[in-house]
């Protein structure tokens, strides 16, 4: 493939990845609760990181560097949700309860449709 096309593909993957990283980080600042902040961490850990690493793969050519990038991608993709799951289990075990909409959950527990 011509280098211009590879540069274009890199831009096409790096820009959404960068935006998703910043969106996830802002979410970790502004969301109200540990369980809500895990959503922001999920955006950073899966889609943001994956898009940036895929964008780097287009610049590295075929070789050992691409294999290393693919390995990093696979590790991050599988280990980050696992550790977030473990953290959520530890939170619930330690007695941290999610902040929910009280009125809404009360309506659900009465069996009514909200």
């Amino acid at each position, binding site marked *: 493939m011509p280098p211009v096309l590879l*540069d274009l593909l*890199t*831009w096409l993957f*790096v*820009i959404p*990845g*960068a*935006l998703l*990283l*910043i969106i*996830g*980080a*802002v979410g*970790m*600042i502004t969301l109200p609760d*540990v369980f809500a*902040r*895990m959503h*922001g*961490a999920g955006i*950073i*850990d899966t889609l*943001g*990181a994956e898009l*940036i*690493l895929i*964008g*780097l793969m287009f*610049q*590295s050519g075929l070789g050992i*560097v691409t294999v*290393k*990038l693919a*390995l*990093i991608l696979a*590790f*991050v993709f599988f*280990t*980050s949700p*696992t*550790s*977030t799951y*473990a*953290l959520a*289990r*530890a*939170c619930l*075990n*330690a007695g*941290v309860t999610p902040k929910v909409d009280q009125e809404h959950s009360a309506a659900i527990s009465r069996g009514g449709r909200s």
Partner: protein
Amino acid sequence: MSFAVATLAVLISMILVLTRALLGPTVFDRILAVNSFGTLTVLLIAVVGFLQGRPEFLDLALVYALINFIGTIAVTKFIKFNDMGHGQEAGRDSGDI
């Protein structure tokens, strides 16, 4: 140029996530923020390696990704059981982190 944009985004995200790690009301907020900070560090090592034309830095990123996962699991286990090994009192749901 695209590497510079990616580096800038990673650095901004690292500052925001580190703010949450310093502010976090509970210890779980801090663990979550440090986990995300580790992922962002992996990305920063990879992108700066490409930015300087030295992709050999990817080895460091690979090792950091593994250590980040092990560290998060270990700290979570320590917070939950107050012990790194499996004590007698921790056997109520053993192996279930």
